[in-house]
Structure formats: structure tokens, C-alpha cells
């Protein structure tokens, strides 16, 4: 099985949550449909909307643990990402970064640090953990798909976080390189071997560039009131007894 899904499945087991209480939503490029066989409800949304869709799932039933596997995160889903972080919406975002639009022919993405287009990429790529941290995420980490143990630990920790958590996983694009096994395995090895673990590093310093080492590790782990916490606090303050505190039960 895909090492990312394996890490996720192990994380769920270690954290001890019932798989049926977990919902996974993903958008177009990365479709971990296999999770439905683990007993998890799986929703495959339109491009970039999984965070918004997940926000609806979470708010309509706060007892669910909503996990989002996202690909078109920083383009179509950029605004949803920023605001979910700002609100500290209780969502776990697993951003699978293959640096490329793998399914549709290898066009550059906002996280592409080096040439993929005919005349090379010249745009500055996003630094995902830094962006997440700046938006208010309570947990950020980055691993390559070969950091299986670290990834499992991060998944376990993040599942327990109250708030917006982001794990970036560097992984080759399986569809783009399908049939060229050598490139695929070389690439995943390259990411792994070219990485350096720096837990607690300032997320500002973990941008990926073709020249330097890929910094992996856990960068953010803090506490902040979640959206539902803040909502309950504010409404109780204003409405007093008339307010029906939100969360716990469905509606």
C-alpha cells in the first residue's frame, strides 16, 4: 500500500479512534479511495474544495474527525486553506506534494521549485509549512514518503490536535511516472537521501530549493482555541442561557 496511507492507517490505530468516526475528503489529484476499505467514509470532491467541504462535514457533526488529503491545495484551494487556518477549524490536512500536476501531464504547480515546463519554472514556490504556520495552524510537519516511522508519529500526533493541522508529504507523482519505475524509485530515494531532519526549525527556513537540502521534521506544535471553542465562548458571552452550546452531538 501507499506509504502515506499506511502511515495514516497506523496513525489511526495508534491514536485509537474508531475508523468509522473518521471522514476523509480529498480533491482531484490525490485520491486515497482505499481508505473506504479501512472503514473510513471517503468523499472525493471537486478540485480544491476538500477543505471547504470538510468544514461543512465538521460543523454539521463536530464528533467526526475530518481528514483531508489534498493536492490542488495551494491553487484552487488556497483561499480555503488560508481561512481554515485563520479560524483554526479542526481539520487535519495531509498535503501530498509531488511538485507537479502529475495526472494531466506534468505542468508546474505553485510548489514546483525546478524545471517542469518547456522553458523551465521561474516562479517562487510556496513553502507549505511556513504558509500553514502563518495562517494559524497548530501543527505543521513535513516528511518524505520514505520517512515512514516519523510520518506515522506525526499522523498520530496530528489526529490528537485540537485545531488546524498540516502535514506535508513529499512523494513522487505516481501517475506521471507510471511505467518508468526507475525514475519513480530514484526520485523517492532522492527526496529521502537529500533530506535533513530538523525538528522545531522555524518554518520560515524550510523552503525547498533545488540547491539546498530538503528540511523535514515537525515545525509547529501549539495550542489555540478552535473555531467551535471560540464560537461557544463568544455566543455564551453574548446570549447567556439562551445559547445552545455547539458541538458534541449532531446539531
Amino acid at each position, binding site marked *: 500500500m501507499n506509504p502515506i496511507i499506511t502511515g495514516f492507517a497506523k496513525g489511526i490505530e495508534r491514536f485509537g479512534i474508531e475508523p468509522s468516526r473518521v471522514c476523509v475528503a480529498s480533491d482531484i489529484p490525490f485520491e486515497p479511495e482505499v481508505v473506504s476499505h479501512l472503514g473510513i467514509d471517503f468523499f472525493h470532491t471537486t478540485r480544491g474544495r476538500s477543505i471547504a467541504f470538510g468544514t461543512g462535514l465538521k*460543523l*454539521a457533526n463536530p464528533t*467526526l474527525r475530518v481528514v483531508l488529503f489534498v493536492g490542488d491545495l495551494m491553487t484552487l484551494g488556497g483561499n480555503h486553506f488560508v481561512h481554515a487556518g485563520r479560524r483554526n477549524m479542526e481539520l487535519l490536512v495531509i498535503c501530498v506534494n509531488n511538485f507537479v500536476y502529475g495526472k494531466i501531464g506534468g505542468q508546474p504547480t505553485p510548489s514546483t521549485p525546478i524545471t517542469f515546463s518547456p522553458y523551465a519554472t521561474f516562479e517562487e514556490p510556496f513553502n507549505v509549512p511556513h504558509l500553514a504556520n502563518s495562517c494559524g495552524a497548530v501543527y505543521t510537519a513535513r516528511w518524505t514518503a520514505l520517512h515512514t516511522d516519523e510520518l506515522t508519529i506525526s499522523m498520530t500526533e496530528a489526529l490528537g490536535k485540537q485545531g488546524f493541522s498540516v502535514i506535508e508529504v513529499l512523494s513522487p507523482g505516481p501517475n506521471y511516472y507510471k511505467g518508468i519505475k526507475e525514475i519513480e524509485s530514484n526520485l523517492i530515494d532522492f527526496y529521502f537521501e537529500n533530506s535533513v531532519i530538523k525538528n522545531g526549525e522555524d518554518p520560515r527556513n524550510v523552503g525547498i530549493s533545488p540547491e539546498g537540502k530538503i528540511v523535514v521534521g515537525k515545525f509547529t506544535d501549539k495550542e489555540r482555541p478552535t473555531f467551535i471553542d471560540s464560537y461557544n465562548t463568544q*455566543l455564551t458571552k453574548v446570549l447567556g442561557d439562551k445559547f445552545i452550546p455547539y458541538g458534541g452531538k449532531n446539531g
Partner: protein
Amino acid sequence: MNPITNGSLGLGVLKMKADPRDVNTGVYYIDGDVAAGQGALAAGCKFIGGYPITPSTEAAEAFARIAPQAGAMFIQMEDELASIAAVVGASWAGVKSMTITSGPGFSLMMESIGFGAMLETPFVLLNIQRAGPSTGVPTKTGQADMMQSRWGSHGDYEIIVISPDSPQEMFDYTIKAFNLAERYRCPVMVMADECVGHMTEKVAIPPADEIEVEPRRFYDGKINEYLPFRPGEDLVPRMAKAGDGHKLYITGLIHDERGYPIKNEEYKSTYTKRLVDKIRLNKEKIIELIEEETDDAEVVVVSYGISSRVAVKGIEKAREKGIKVGSLRLITVWPFPDAKIAELAKTVKAFVVPEINYGQIVFEVERCSYGEANVVLVPHGGGGVHNPDDMFDAIEYASKEKKRIEGTIEYKTRLEKSVFEEGGKLQE
């Protein structure tokens, strides 16, 4: 709220009364937007995701004000794309949900309308139409999103559209919209307009036990046997919610009864056919019309939304003058009542269709009249409603005009004559 299930897939009657905690019984003097917010609450709506846009904000504000005291959630999302995606998500988590918008937001929402239709998700979209295109005139009325409501998202699907014409109807038909959404597992749109939204009138909210509410038709069989897209006899599948252990696999790709993607041509046709037939074959049960004095009518005014109220004056005047004029008000605009129009076309001389656009629903009327009757459009460019005198003149004209075969006849209104023919005014 406990759904009453009849234990079988298909045609069972699943009616219940509104929850008294959600119904603010009384007689109020409120505007259409606020009435719609109250209607949503009475229908059992527990989640609204929205993004403020004139002239629909009052509806969202009304709901946001009452939601915390009713165990419901209102969230102002970052944009309309997010609002409607969250609404679809909330519906899959098992609650009745709605979003509220107007023109520019409506355009952004098209993506998830198709997504919602594909996933057969019940939710309600309230569009308080304003004058377009683009930013148009935010504070003034229009009825030019009617075709967009039907065809706006890509691909083949059917939805239901209702068009209220008063604050009381905003309350009543918002509830009906929720009932239809649950009944047919599809998005339902309430296409009101700025005039109806901002019109303040008496609204009577009845006691909860007088409000019929359709509960969600949850699957009630064995947990490992649920198929999210297996249709009942009425072509509508039962719904389940996330977190109940059904191992849901729900995707916007064409899928089989289990929800798993299937790409072959044969299956694609089967699936699409059911998606459209679900509404088309249940048309007679869905469509609601108000028909007046059409029995011996020479002219029938076909109207919807605010234009139907403006038309009343013209109809009354025409009757005073001895013209035999009937009225057909489309409460349900989509699915279109084609059989009714075709039936009337055989006996009437002409249809008069006033709408605040340069021809949308009028072409449906033309299509369904099969050349048997003249079809006269009374257009309006938006930003205001028709002059009632134009309604009368158009009816009178239609009653005298010989049968033509060149399609819709565009009636020239007073406003158009004053700006285009007498000159100068347009420049002022």
C-alpha cells in the same frame, strides 16, 4: 428530530410536523429575506454557509441571529465556492443545509451545484436575483438567472427551481424547497428577486403542527449492505450520513450504486438517464402552478416571481375591458410545466410572458406551444419592475394580433420607447 422511516426503499410516505423549537409562530411584518431565514429554520435547517452579497444579506443575517438559539450553525465562509461546498459537506454529515446568494455569488456556486446533483445531495440554494450581468446593479431587481439556475453547471443533470412572489411565499416555499430536496435527493433553488427579498409585508408563521416537513430519508437496513446510489421505485436512493460506519465512497466521478467510479459508456448513459429521470418522471408530483380563468381565455399571462404580481394589475384592467385573459403562475419553474403549456396552447390565441430579462422562460413557453399560439415577451432590462400599463397593453395587443409563425414576439415597453425612440433620455 427523529426521522420516521417506513422500512422500505421507495414510495413510502415520510411526512412529519415541524419541530416547535424551530418555529417562531406569530404574525410578523418582515421582508422576504427574513421570512426565508425563518422558513429555513422551520424546515429544520441546521447549517447555513454563506458569503454576504446584496440583496440577499438579510436572509443570512436573519438565520445567523436565530441559529445559536436553535442549535443551528451559521458560518460566513471565505467565498461562495466555499459556502456551497460546505453546504454539500454538511448535508452528507446528516443535517439539512442551505446557502444564500445573489448573481455574482450564484455564478461561483455553479461548480458545486453540479457536484451536489451528481452526489444526489439534498440542499437548498436561495438566490435573491439582482440585475446582471456581472456586478450589474447590486441593489436592484432582475430575473435573468433563470436559465443559469437550470443549466449553469456543466454536464447533464436536473434540479428543481421554485419562484416565490411575496414574503409569505418566501417563508412557505423555502420550507417546500427543503421538502423537495429531501424527497428527491437533489439541490433545490428558491429563485426570488430583489423586490421580493426586500419587500416588507405581513407574514403569518403558523404553529409547528401545521407545517409539513419532510425528514431525511435515511437508509435503515443492515449496515454493510448500504448502497448510496441504489434507487428506489421512484428512482430516488436513500441517504446515509458520514460517521455511521457505512464505509461511504462518494465521488463526483460517474459511479455505480456502491459509489465506485465507472467509466464505460454504457454505464454513463444509464446513470445520467436516472439522474434526469428522477426529476422528469416525477414531474407531475413536483410541479406547482396557480391557474386562473384559463378555461375560456384568449390570452394567458405566464409569469413567475415579482413579475406575476405586477401582471395582476394588467390582467384586471384587461378583464374590465372585456378581454378574456387567464393567468398561469409558475411556482415551480424547473422542471418546466411543458404539458400544461402545450394543453393551453391548443385553446388560447396567445401567451404573454413578462419577465425581467430579454427572454429566458418565454422561449420555453414558445417551445411548448408548438406553434399553436403566439408568444409575446414583455421584456425588462432589469433594475426595476414592469410598468403595469405595459402588461395591459401587451395583453390587448396579444388579443388582437393575428397568428404568426416566426417565434416569440417582443413587445416594446414604454421604457424602451422612451429611451430608444424619443431619443436623448439615454444620454441624460
